[in-house]
């Protein structure tokens, strides 16, 4: 028997009982991915929105096939295709206002293009040209980010800064399923929730991080469930249903804009192509699995729903394809022109002003170039 157990012993009163500070229930995602296409609710969707989404999906698919073709022609060093994920890309590109910011990863050039970026500028990094082919301030699109999840805290910081200034700005940050395992994912979501920053996080869960399936990535009930731990709502949506993704993201963006804080959206989709042109997907997944997802193609889903409502005929389909073809032809032509890079630019923008060291190194390279020129 310890002293405290003796009859009449002094027992300290425990501090006030722990209580959850927020009710977890409203933060929980749906049990099944949210869908609109193929449901009764599809009948009420604005036809203009459907037409817009359809045109962008068709153009987006063509953009993906064209970019992949450019890798085979040696015009792109690498292309991480978003084929199969166009619904997410298009919705992300359309859902923001002019003043908002998009934070893309390497796989999200299509979202940037939908937002208004010139495709050639979006692909500059991937052709082996300068790291960012565009001024991020022009379209409020952050530079394509390759170190996984590291763009997420940037989105939080930018949104937080804008809120402190009293500006009406929302940041939408994109990340993959694999990226959710990174520490920066955790830190970004935690900061966003604590600061109530106007940010929306969109996870495109395409089933794989290169070869590693989701089951080896997480034991969470769903990636959307992770939101609850940070005190923000998690939404689970069918990532191939463009209308559903557009709606869920739209709600999250409105909520952020109104001061309601961040939302985590998990869009369940599938990467129909290999990780990049350099990857061999047959080493880690079966054709049958891919075929099953092809049957759930985002373009087909929308096309069928629109035909059902008489909003799309063969002629409209053809004209969408023609528009996409024109975009592809233009992209092809321009990507087949060799970009002109000036080696002397290597020393620019390392610092606001070159250090003595960089001036010396620039002089050395200039002399090398002059010697090369002389040899010719």
């Amino acid at each position, binding site marked *: 028997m310890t002293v405290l157990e003796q009859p009449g012993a002094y027992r300290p009163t425990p501090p006030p009982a722990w209580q959850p500070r927020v009710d977890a229930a409203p933060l929980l995602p749906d049990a099944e991915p949210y869908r609109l296409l193929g449901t009764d609710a599809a009948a009420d969707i604005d036809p203009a929105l459907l037409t817009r989404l359809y045109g962008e999906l068709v153009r987006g698919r063509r953009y993906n096939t064209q970019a992949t073709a450019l890798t085979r022609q040696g015009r792109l060093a690498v292309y991480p295709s978003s084929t199969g994920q166009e619904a997410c890309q298009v919705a992300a590109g359309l859902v923001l206002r002019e003043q908002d910011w998009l934070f893309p990863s390497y796989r999200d050039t299509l979202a940037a293009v939908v937002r208004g970026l010139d495709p050639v500028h979006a692909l500059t990094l991937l052709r082996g040209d300068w790291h*960012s082919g565009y001024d991020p301030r022009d379209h409020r699109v952050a530079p394509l980010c390759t170190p996984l999840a590291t763009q997420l805290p940037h989105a939080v910081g930018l949104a937080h800064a804008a809120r402190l200034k009293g500006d009406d700005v929302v940041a939408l940050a994109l990340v993959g399923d694999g990226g959710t395992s990174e520490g920066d994912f955790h*830190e970004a979501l935690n900061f966003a929730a604590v600061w109530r920053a106007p940010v929306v996080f969109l996870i495109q869960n395409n089933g794989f991080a290169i070869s590693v399936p989701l089951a080896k990535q997480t034991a969470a009930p769903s990636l959307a469930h992770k939101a609850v731990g940070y005190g923000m709502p998690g939404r689970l949506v069918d990532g191939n249903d463009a209308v559903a993704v557009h709606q869920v993201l739209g709600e999250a963006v409105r909520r952020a804009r109104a001061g309601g804080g961040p939302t985590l959206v998990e869009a369940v989709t599938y990467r129909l192509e290999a990780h990049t042109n350099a990857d061999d997907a047959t080493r880690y997944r079966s054709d049958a699995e891919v075929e099953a997802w092809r049957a759930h193609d985002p373009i087909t889903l929308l096309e069928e729903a629109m035909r059902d409502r008489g909003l799309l005929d063969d002629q409209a389909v053809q004209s969408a394809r023609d528009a996409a073809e024109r975009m592809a032809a233009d992209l092809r032509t321009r990507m087949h022109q060799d970009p002109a890079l000036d080696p002397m630019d290597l020393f620019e923008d390392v610092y606001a002003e070159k250090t003595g060291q960089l001036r010396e190194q620039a002089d050395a390279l200039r002399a090398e170039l002059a010697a090369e020129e002389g040899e010719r």
Partner: protein
Amino acid sequence: MTTTAVKPATMAQALGRALRDAMAADPAVHVLGEDVGTLGGVFRITDGLAKEFGDDRCTDTPLAEAGILGTAVGMAMYGLRPVVEMQFDAFAYPSFEQLVSHVSRMRNRTRGALPMPITVRVPYGGGIGGVEHHSDSSEAYYMATPGLHVVAPATVADAYGLLRAAIASDDPVVFLEPKRLYWSKAEWSPDHPEEVAPIGRAVVRRPATGGRTATLISYGPSVPVCLEAAEAASAEGWDLEVVDLRSLVPFDDETVCASVRRTGRAVVVHESTGFGGPGGEIAARITERCFHHLEAPVLRVAGFDIPYPPPMLERHHLPGVDRVLDAVARLQWESEWTEGRAV
């Protein structure tokens, strides 16, 4: 707050004053870090800032260094001028990815569109009896990352002037604050802080006038050690020049080489490990530029190539006056053929 008299002030006070003045001068300056608000930081450098400028300008963040620096990147993208406090040298490591992959190269990646005017304040170095992970000299990691400025003040006046310059800089600055000099004192008036040269200029703290001369090159916490060694050396017939680098990046080759050309001998002193430490780079630069002026190889007095030792043994690890004098004695005076040359 108006004290006109020049009174002794500590480096910690000068740093705090620099933050305050920078925040008052520019509403874009935001301080963020762990415990920087209510508490004023574990070293009290940010004391009073939250009270004066509000929690939104001096923010206690969640405990996550990558998150702190990562959000600072986004804040800088939006036009703010974040000043990040890392609680201790070794606790800055979780933020390395953001520092290396984004802070240091965002300007370059975006071809000048998105500069990163971020100051990362890092209390660094040993000699304070700190247990494991509280005494690292991590400057070599930062130096090896193009795009960063790396600054370390050694005096009260420099602490103020260089921190103001760091915050005003449009480039990211890793600002290394020598913990063991936090409580060092000097006559210093917060209301008339003396002008400090821009980042990138070294300074001769003690000029040599002639005789048996050599240059001691150091920065941050090792500068007072070198000054003390120079005083002791004068009793033994040496006249040592002491160069305080103040910034490792940009590196002031001009001041360093001018001094070495005058004296003909050089010793680099720092707490950081010798192997792969800043001294190797500095010795190489001197050799490349001043070879014909050198009477002896450039020597280094550095911390041992070991993980930072327990506080009970740290005095054996840290470069002290004796070790500096030993190095000076090894500068091949016996082969002296320029003895007595005028400086």
